[in-house]
């Protein structure tokens, strides 16, 4: 092993050596610099590997041949090694990245860079508090120098502001250090005795030291200077400033906090959380990319600092958690800054230029996912462990605040990403420099590698070794292939996995697996209609299916949550692909992440310290033991799941997301994705049963929510002019039924919910495909612009017809089965009032469905549609499969449900349904699907024959041959009654569709935004003001501590 001090020696030596290089030999100087950084990186990496493998022990490096505390010593352990690797690798990559700028400024700049990296490494390594100060000042000065690499003239002012602030910091630090020395008689960190929380003597000295280090972490709101640097510095340097400096400073603070003792942790937590939340909120309002990333950096460091404040409860997992978040942040933020250097414009939407290179888009997506803590990146595992630790020790407020801040961060990061994917930019595409792209790709690779490593270290399964996830990621490699090849692979994969796993499923899983996997494959048939390569479609799609496949099989809470997140990511990117999908994808991801966070909180609460727990037995255990937290677990999980089922109140993402999605994506996200939430709810009620908060039975609340969703979803669907939106609202309504049935907590109710799972999948997929086909041909989704398509698109018409008969519950098709079960279910329930809502919503379904079929297929054909062709054959094929399935399911519902019925019976110990032959008998009634079908069929045929016997000579007429008060129609447009179709209904019950929920969520975001806009005016840009703010911060914390200590 090479001693870690060589990192310092090589860095410094090379910096001095550069002075000997002739000024005009810039290439040589650069090579030397890079070589030195490479050696430093290699040393750090070598240590990391060796320490991780356990082949070497953590080492203390003495200087001057004297034992500490009498001489400065350095220490390298696993944490140090990791951070050194990050710092040096960032420096190395940044050097590559800034090659042009470095060569422009000459060897001086290169030595500054080397010293910077060296000093950051020193900051990590040293165990001497004054040495810490020296390295810290080196960093300050080097930063002051590297800021000049920027071609932005404003950077000079930013650098000066930074120097002003660092002057104050160093004053505090020095005073703190000297008094700490006085108190301890030593400058060695390991010798510093823990001090009580307070402002007397040693405590005050420690306070000053800590405050100085905290200020270096850019705490909100004393961080204007840092943001100015982020905004104006060379992106290559910003990467160092964010990734490496932040990391090193944080580690330094961590060392001191550890020394100061546990009494100081709460203060650190508060500062960290305040920074995390404040910066994230402020970032909402940023329109400069680098400044936005700056805010995000500050916030992330704040988060890690808050985690530092939790080190007392994290125990051995501390490094895993804090390191996970810290390192992911470093990699992601460095990557993002490097990308920002490739983008010529500074507006957020200017990143749209990245679309010229899919690799960069992928990188951007990966970095955003890393920041937000999505799988498979380390932040995800860290988040999981952290929340469990917090819940385990009752720190619920911290949990809530961290999750809230993370949600806000996800908000602006994903909005940013959405801009890049969907917006247009004024900037001209400059062509990306290959070397810079390579640097970004290196960061990207590092991020994924970290994900793999963290997954491996984690006690939980490594997501990057799971077959479905790998299968989805395989499509990254397959991207150059034509779409149809990928489609075949995808279908084979889905069906194959189902086939392979089929033996392991219980009947409930079987139903969901069949719907999600086989059903997904059927929908994918429709994807054959796309030509070309369809870049960026298959990875998210398969990621979503991977998540679903894993979700069904999840054994532990972790499996479940990981699968949930995976499917959320996949579906987000899918929805984002939609034509106007940007805002909807954003609200989707926000609601989904919010939901996911609630689920995480719920699991954490349920884990009672042991994580992960076996999902079913774990949940039933806390329910049976009547743990006080149990109802809250139930509530958190239920709300989390209902973000996916889009129950009312959490539904506002759905209409847009479904409506704007691509033709074959809409059925996926509607027919399949929503079922994930239902599956979760199923698990929940199966394991936890009825839970009460106070005297309120939560399942009854669910019943109400389901009923209200069913009603309002339907009412809103009635008033839509956009066909896909109509279907989307209808999904809300349908899922409301399912939630309702589930929450009735009786056998038939569950069966009803399962029936909806199957039925809703079939007919909603079919309808979305049909409407998608129509959209493909007519180029519009507005129903009043269509009309009369029945003869032009007969197959599509048939599927819509069957779909709406089935969906409205009219016998003989399968929807009736649902209604029949529904009545049997409510008969067995004690609840009465929610039924009223369901009764109202039943016929309402009829209204919007009629509107759908009427305004598209009937009425007046428009001029421009006269030559339309039937929808593409690949869209029609799955529809016809669905038609057949519906008919089959209508006649033989027992085929799918009988086994599940028996399975549900095991939960309730009853068997209310008797499946005799082809008839079903319940406690209350009976139903014979075959008989119904036959009777209706026979009557229908008889009547038809009767009509035909009364003359076959009907003259076929055309669309204007109608009785028009002895006039003739003027134009098809004015003759087609379609717009505001249910006007009287709006007059009567329009008050029901007042957008209360939208207004509410709108007010929430508005409040956040205006808070952000108001607060960010703190940052006046005046360096002196920043200095005052720093002092204010110090004094405020001082007063708080003063108050807290007394």
């Amino acid at each position, binding site marked *: 092993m090479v001693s870690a001090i060589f990192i310092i020696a090589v860095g410094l030596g090379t910096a*001095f050596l550069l002075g000997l290089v002739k000024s005009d030999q810039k290439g040589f100087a650069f090579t030397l610099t890079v070589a030195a950084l490479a050696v430093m990186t290699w040393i750090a990496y070598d240590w990391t590997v060796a320490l991780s493998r356990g082949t070497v022990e953590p080492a203390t490096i003495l200087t001057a041949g004297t034992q500490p505390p009498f001489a400065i010593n350095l220490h390298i352990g696993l944490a140090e090694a990791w951070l050194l690797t990050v710092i040096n690798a960032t420096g190395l990559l940044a050097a590559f990245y800034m090659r042009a700028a470095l060569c422009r400024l000459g060897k001086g700049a290169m030595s500054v860079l080397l010293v910077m990296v060296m000093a950051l490494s020193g900051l990590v390594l040293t165990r001497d508090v004054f040495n810490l100060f020296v390295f810290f000042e080196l960093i300050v000065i080097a930063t002051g120098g590297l800021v000049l690499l920027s071609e932005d003239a404003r950077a000079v002012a930013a650098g000066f502001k930074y120097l002003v602030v660092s002057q104050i910091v160093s004053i505090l630090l020095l005073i703190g250090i000297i008094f700490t020395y006085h108190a301890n*008689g030593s400058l060695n960190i390991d010798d510093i005795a823990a001090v009580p929380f307070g402002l*007397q003597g040693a405590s005050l000295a420690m306070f000053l030291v800590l405050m100085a280090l905290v200020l270096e972490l850019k705490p909100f709101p004393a961080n204007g200077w840092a943001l100015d640097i982020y905004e104006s510095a060379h992106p290559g340097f910003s990467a160092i400033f964010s990734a490496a400096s932040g990391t090193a400073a944080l580690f330094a603070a961590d060392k001191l906090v550890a020394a100061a003792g546990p009494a100081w942790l709460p203060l650190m937590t508060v500062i960290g959380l305040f920074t995390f939340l404040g910066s994230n909120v402020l970032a909402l309002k940023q329109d400069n990319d680098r400044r936005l990333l700056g805010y995000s950096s500050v916030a992330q460091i704040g988060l890690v600092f808050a985690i530092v404040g939790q080190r007392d409860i994290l125990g051995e997992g501390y490094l895993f958690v804090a390191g996970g978040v810290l390192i992911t942040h470093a990699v992601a933020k460095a990557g993002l800054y490097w990308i920002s250097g490739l983008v010529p414009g500074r507006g957020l939407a200017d990143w749209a230029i990245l679309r010229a290179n899919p690799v960069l888009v992928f990188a951007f997506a990966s970095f955003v996912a890393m920041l937000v803590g999505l799988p498979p990146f380390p932040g995800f595992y860290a988040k999981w462990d952290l929340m469990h630790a917090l819940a385990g020790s009752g720190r619920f407020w911290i949990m809530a605040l961290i999750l809230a801040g993370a949600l806000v961060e996800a908000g602006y990061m994903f909005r940013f990403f959405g801009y890049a994917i969907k917006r247009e930019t004024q900037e001209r595409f400059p062509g990306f420099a290959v070397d810079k792209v390579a640097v970004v790709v290196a960061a990207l690779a590092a991020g994924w590698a970290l994900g793999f490593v963290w997954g491996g270290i984690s006690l939980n399964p490594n997501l990057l070794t799971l077959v479905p996830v790998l299968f989805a990621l395989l499509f990254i490699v397959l991207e150059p292939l034509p779409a149809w090849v990928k489609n075949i692979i995808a279908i084979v994969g889905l069906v194959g996995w189902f086939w392979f796993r089929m033996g392991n499923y219980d009947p409930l899983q079987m139903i969901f697996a069949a719907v999600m996997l086989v059903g997904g494959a059927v929908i994918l048939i429709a994807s054959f209609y796309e030509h070309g390569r369809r870049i960026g479609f298959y990875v998210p799609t398969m990621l979503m299916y991977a998540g679903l496949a894993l979700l069904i099989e999840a054994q532990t809470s972790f499996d479940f949550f990981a699968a949930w997140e995976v499917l959320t990511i996949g579906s987000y990117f899918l929805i984002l692909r939609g034509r106007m999908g940007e805002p909807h994808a954003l609200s989707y991801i926000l609601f989904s992440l919010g939901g996911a966070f609630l689920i995480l909180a719920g699991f954490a609460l349920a884990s009672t310290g042991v994580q992960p727990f076996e999902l079913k037995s774990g949940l039933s255990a806390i329910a049976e033991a009547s743990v006080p937290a149990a109802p809250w677990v139930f509530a958190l999980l239920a709300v989390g799941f209902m973000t996916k089922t889009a129950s009312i109140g959490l539904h506002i993402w759905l209409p847009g997301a479904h409506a704007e999605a691509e033709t074959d994506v809409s059925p996926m996200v509607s027919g399949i994705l929503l079922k994930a939430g239902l599956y979760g709810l199923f698990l929940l009620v199966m394991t936890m049963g009825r839970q009460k908060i106070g005297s309120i039975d939560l399942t009854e609340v669910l019943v109400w929510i389901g009923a209200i969703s069913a009603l309002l979803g339907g009412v809103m669907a009635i008033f839509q002019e956009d066909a896909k939106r109509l279907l989307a609202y209808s999904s809300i309504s349908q899922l409301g039924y399912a939630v309702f049935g589930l929450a009735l907590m009786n056998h038939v109710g569950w069966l009803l919910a399962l029936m909806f799972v199957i039925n809703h999948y079939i007919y909603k997929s079919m309808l979305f495909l049909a409407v998608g086909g129509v959209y493909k041909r007519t180029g519009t989704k507005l129903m009043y612009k269509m009309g009369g398509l029945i003869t032009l698109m007969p197959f599509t018409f048939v599927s819509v017809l069957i779909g709406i008969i089935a969906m409205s519950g009219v016998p003989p098709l399968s929807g009736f089965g649902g209604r029949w079960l529904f009545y049997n279910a409510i008969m067995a329930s004690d609840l009465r009032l929610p039924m009223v809502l369901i009764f109202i919503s039943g016929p309402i379904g009829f209204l919007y469905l009629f509107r759908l079929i009427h305004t598209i297929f009937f009425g007046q054909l428009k001029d421009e549609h006269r030559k339309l062709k039937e929808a593409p054959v690949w869209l029609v094929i799955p529809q016809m499969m669905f038609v057949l399935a519906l008919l089959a399911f209508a006649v033989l519902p027992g085929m799918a449900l009988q086994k599940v019925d028996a399975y549900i019976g095991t939960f309730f110990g009853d068997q209310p349904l008797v499946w005799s032959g082809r008839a079903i008998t319940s406690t209350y009634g009976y139903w014979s699907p075959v008989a119904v079908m036959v009777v209706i069929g026979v009557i229908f045929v008889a009547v038809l024959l009767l009509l035909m016997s009364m003359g076959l000579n009907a003259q076929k007429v055309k669309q204007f041959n109608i009785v028009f008060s002895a006039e003739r129609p003027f134009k098809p447009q004015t003759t087609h009654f379609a717009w505001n179709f249910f006007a009287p209904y709006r007059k009567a019950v329009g008050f029901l569709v007042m957008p209360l929920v939208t207004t509410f969520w709108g007010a929430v975001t508005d409040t956040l935004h205006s808070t952000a806009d108001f607060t960010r005016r703190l940052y006046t840009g005046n360096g002196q003001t920043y200095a*005052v703010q720093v002092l204010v911060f110090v004094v405020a914390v001082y007063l708080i501590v003063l108050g807290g200590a007394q």
Partner: protein
Amino acid sequence: MTSNFTSRAAVALVLLLLLGTAFWSLTTGYSADAALNRTAEYYAVNTPAETGAQNVVTAIIVTYRGLDTLGEVTVLFLTAAIVALVLGQSKAPRGASGSGFLPSGELLQTGTKMLLPLILMFGAYIFVNGHLTPGGGFQGGAVLASGMLLLLLADPGKRFRKAVIHRVESLSGLFYVLIGLAGMAWAGGFLDNRILPLGQFGQILSAGAIPLIYTLIGLKVGAEFSSILESLEETEDA
């Protein structure tokens, strides 16, 4: 003053008063130790044997806290480099600079020529004796640089041979690092001064590598200050 007394000043005053209470608390809470603390005592007792330096402070600076000192040197190095960078971007065209100043008088120039060797020698004396008497590399280096300053003041148009300065700067820094590494190879650790024999206590050639290191530091500091001065001098407005 009252007219300038802005709200900012009021805020600053209040803040500083509050900060002052913290300082007040530190001051009133401070009681000087009766005896040396253990670190200081260790140095007091062991310095002669371990480093062979008479000047305990020097021993601490060069050896025990050698890493700090290396950092310190680096600070100056950095500053010099950055000042060069900062000012380099607004460097005056060749020949144009300094033209605003007339050359100083004969008297001054002659005086400079007389004084300069003395100043340089004094500087060297200070850093060579750093381990024995108060003083050392930084002080000596500063004295060296003051000589340079004198030179500049006497003749504003004067240009140093930059290459020489930079070479001195770099080589001394490099050797410093190498000596540090040599400590790892042949003595107890990085920057251990015992790679050279400790020699006779109190002699000029004693205390191991300390005089050598201090010489390097002195040269380096002198070179760096000179280079900063030079950068300032070369700006357009100088």
